[in-house]
């Protein structure tokens, strides 16, 4: 994919479901950073592919449930296939399915990193748990560090 639009951070999730709002919260904190595009969405595959078209690197932030302690940070690099669940629901396609679908379609950016945050609560209601709120600063630092490494590599030729 030819990237000309620079780095993009996409927060994924549903802010009305507790810690599932962490992606949107990270994006809100990063909005306005010079040279960085930010977006928030529900994770719908077509929307994701449209959002990241032309951008590189692309960083996704989402709540990820692995069973680890709430607030645990996960980092996945899409150069390797993302682990997909065995379940396919007719009501939604998971982030890993969306990324793998994009790979099948040749729509993946060269650099795609997923930062996942283990949630404490995903029940109805706005607001992050203390465990997840405490990780926000760390996630943001990791993303800005990623960008500092990745940006020079992928800066478009002038």
């Amino acid at each position: 994919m030819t990237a000309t639009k620079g780095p993009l951070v996409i927060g994924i999730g549903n802010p009305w479901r507790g810690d599932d709002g962490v992606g949107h919260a990270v994006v809100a904190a990063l909005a306005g950073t010079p040279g960085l595009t930010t977006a928030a969405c529900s994770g719908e595959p077509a929307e994701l592919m449209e959002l990241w078209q032309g951008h590189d690197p692309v960083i996704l932030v989402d709540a990820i449930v692995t069973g680890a302690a709430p607030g645990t940070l996960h980092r996945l690099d899409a150069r390797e296939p993302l682990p997909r669940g065995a379940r396919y629901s007719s009501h939604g396609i998971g982030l890993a399915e969306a990324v793998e679908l994009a790979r099948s379609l040749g729509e993946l950016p060269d650099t795609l990193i997923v930062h996942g945050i283990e949630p404490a609560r995903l029940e109805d209601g706005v607001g992050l748990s203390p465990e997840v709120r405490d990780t926000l600063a760390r996630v943001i630092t990791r993303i800005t560090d990623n960008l500092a490494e990745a940006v020079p590599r992928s800066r478009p030729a002038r």
Partner: protein
Amino acid sequence: MSETRTIEVDYLARVEGEGAMYVRTEGDRVEEVKLSIFEAPRFFEGFLRGRDFREAPDITARICGICPIAYQMGASLAMEDICGITVDGVLQDLRRLAYCGEWIESHALHVFMLHLPDFLGYPDAVTAAKDHPDMVRNGLRIKKIGNAILRLLGGREIHPVNLRVGGFYRAPSPAEVAGLGEDLSWGLEASCEVAEFLATLDYPNLERDYEFVSLVHPDEYPITHGRLGSSSGLDAAIRDYDDIFTEEHVAHSNALHSHRSDSGEPVFMGPLARFALNREHLTPRAAELAERAGLGIACRNPFRSIQVRMIEIVLAFEEALRLVDGYRAAPAEPALPVTPRAGTGFGATEAPRGICYHRYSIDDAGLITDAKIVPPTSVNQPTIEADLRELVQTHLDLPDDELRHHCEVAIRNYDPCISCATHFLDLTVDRK
């Protein structure tokens, strides 16, 4: 000597919600078929009691992330029935447009992501996308257009917030609605191409003598309203639903089973039923595609439901384009005024999977005293079991793995929405 075979699917994939299937055979006879829905009960009807009648559309929207409009509109229609108002004209056109969006996004997700891999011979859409990238890419774009309609009319695409008893909280401007036109035109052409492609695929043979039940309407392909009709000649008002259909608990499922009260027989709801009972109201392109696909006046092979679902996507695009073109000015008020009065009201619409029925009672203050909601998957559940019984009976020579796959595809024919029906899926075939 009789051999017992058990075929089980402990967790059904590519359906919405949690369910399982169990089949037990003795020699050459199928003894037992159970479709189990173990998605936890959700108690919506219970916690609607005591709430204001105007809250029902917003509460019931949460029943389903893919067909929320069915719940919002069914609840609204029932409340309007109680309060003695009828939403028509431009507000009714906007309701039909919103519902076209729901049909497009729900049907597209099922056709492209969940069901098409079965007929192309892939385990899932991600694998299918490698060999059929344009098909999957177009499918995703079609679904996205449905979402865009919902976002405009509903305020957001999942659990919309803009529909209310009497109409809408905010009516879109003509410019906003016109903005959908270009994507809708693209979607119509892309959908027609897919419908043509689907007509070239091979489908398993299974034809049963279903009683098709759907809404019927004298002037239009039913989506937002109509009377109850069936292939055996039923013609009844929505308020007669509870006399015609009986729901009962069965031990193996958290979803109620529904059947005809008089005969005790299960019925079939959804795209095949709508198509069979309302074929004369298909839009021009949809009718032409149905004709060319050789679907006849009715299609009784549930495996061909994917074709009919695709034709309904075409219809939804044609209808959406017509409604968008006709929207010249926003209504003076986005909703009709509604004053509560004590009574019982009824509402039913054609959700993507079939009739979604609502009944509410409210008191003079407008507080809900009783609620009953019947989603189509609940009605189709015994019909799916009967399909599975016939399918296994006629394919007993197949090894378990192949038989299991056939059964899973047969369940997906109905695009079952287990979460909605719970009050659902794993597959077990037990051969003795």
